[in-house]
């Protein structure tokens, strides 16, 4: 759902950039105050992994493909939605500037959708579901699915405001496609959390481990 420059007028793009910069500033504060130095390896490996996985488009039928976005993954593994903003913002800058994947004036909107909305939806729905189900795979799958779907709906609204898509048609198509793409988001997110937890459980946020999640509930 990387929005290209042609899809949003420059003026609106600037407004999204300003909002995105506020969240980037908060993410930098998170990195300085709350991210421990021991987490540096996992932060960097998540960035590399999310970049690579975003280049891997899988077919979801209906003549459409999709890939992991990674907002939920970053937020869940590092225990903060700002981790997603931090990592996704930098990954989106690399993608936009070097590969033309997502525009420059629309980068703010892309950071808001995938980093901010994806991160917050992924993190808080995971937290809530973990309390209810005590199951990491179920919670992470649904949280990641929502963290793909909700940003896509936000994107459809932005496309309506930009005059690029009609509202109803945009919401329906974006919703249907990302409900399907969200299954990829869910499966890959759960698999990645399993993989990271099995090799370095200490680098994964306590909220991910079932016992700690149960304790919190």
């Amino acid at each position, binding site marked *: 759902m990387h929005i290209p420059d042609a899809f949003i007028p420059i003026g609106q793009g600037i407004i999204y950039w300003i909002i995105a910069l506020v969240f980037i500033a908060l993410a930098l504060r998170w990195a300085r105050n709350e991210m421990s130095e021991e987490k540096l390896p996992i932060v960097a490996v998540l960035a590399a992994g999310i970049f690579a996985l975003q280049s891997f488009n899988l*077919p979801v039928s209906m003549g459409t493909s999709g890939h992991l976005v990674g907002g939920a993954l970053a937020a869940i593994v590092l225990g903060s939605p700002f981790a997603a903003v931090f990592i996704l913002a930098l990954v989106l800058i690399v993608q936009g500037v070097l590969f033309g994947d997502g525009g420059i004036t629309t980068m703010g909107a892309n950071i808001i959708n995938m980093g901010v909305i994806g991160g917050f939806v992924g993190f808080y729905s995971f937290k809530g579901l973990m309390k209810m189900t005590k199951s990491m795979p179920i919670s992470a799958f649904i949280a990641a699915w929502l963290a793909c779907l909700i940003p896509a709906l936000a994107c459809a609204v932005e496309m309506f405001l930009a005059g690029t898509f009609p509202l109803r048609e945009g919401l329906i198509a974006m919703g249907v496609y990302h409900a399907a793409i969200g299954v990829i988001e869910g499966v890959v997110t759960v698999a990645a959390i399993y993989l990271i937890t099995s090799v370095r459980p200490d680098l994964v946020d306590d909220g991910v481990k079932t016992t700690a999640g149960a304790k919190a509930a």
Partner: protein
Amino acid sequence: MINNKTFLIGGIIVALLIGVVAVFLASGDPDGLESTALIVQGQKTLTGDTPPEAEIQEDLTGKFSYESPMPDYSLGDAMGSTGGILAIAVGTLLAFIVVFGFAYAIKRSGKSTDPNQ
């Protein structure tokens, strides 16, 4: 449990492998946003296949335009999949270096300015 160095190198290798496989196996179908644009432009139906000749019409009036050095994760048709692998490898390593460098610099600067950290 593996140490930091093994985790970092292993993580980069896994990411690079995913990128290489993606060059050969990734679907060429448009993504959700592009598919939606094709529907709006009357070139595709919601659940139908994407016609091979379908192309998103971009109205650039009042919009910014930018030519990236490696568009579509490739180095041009002449370089083929080798170019694709190189492009994705550069991107993957750069994402790693930029995020690691940024996070490291923030932790360093945080230490010198804030005695509580």
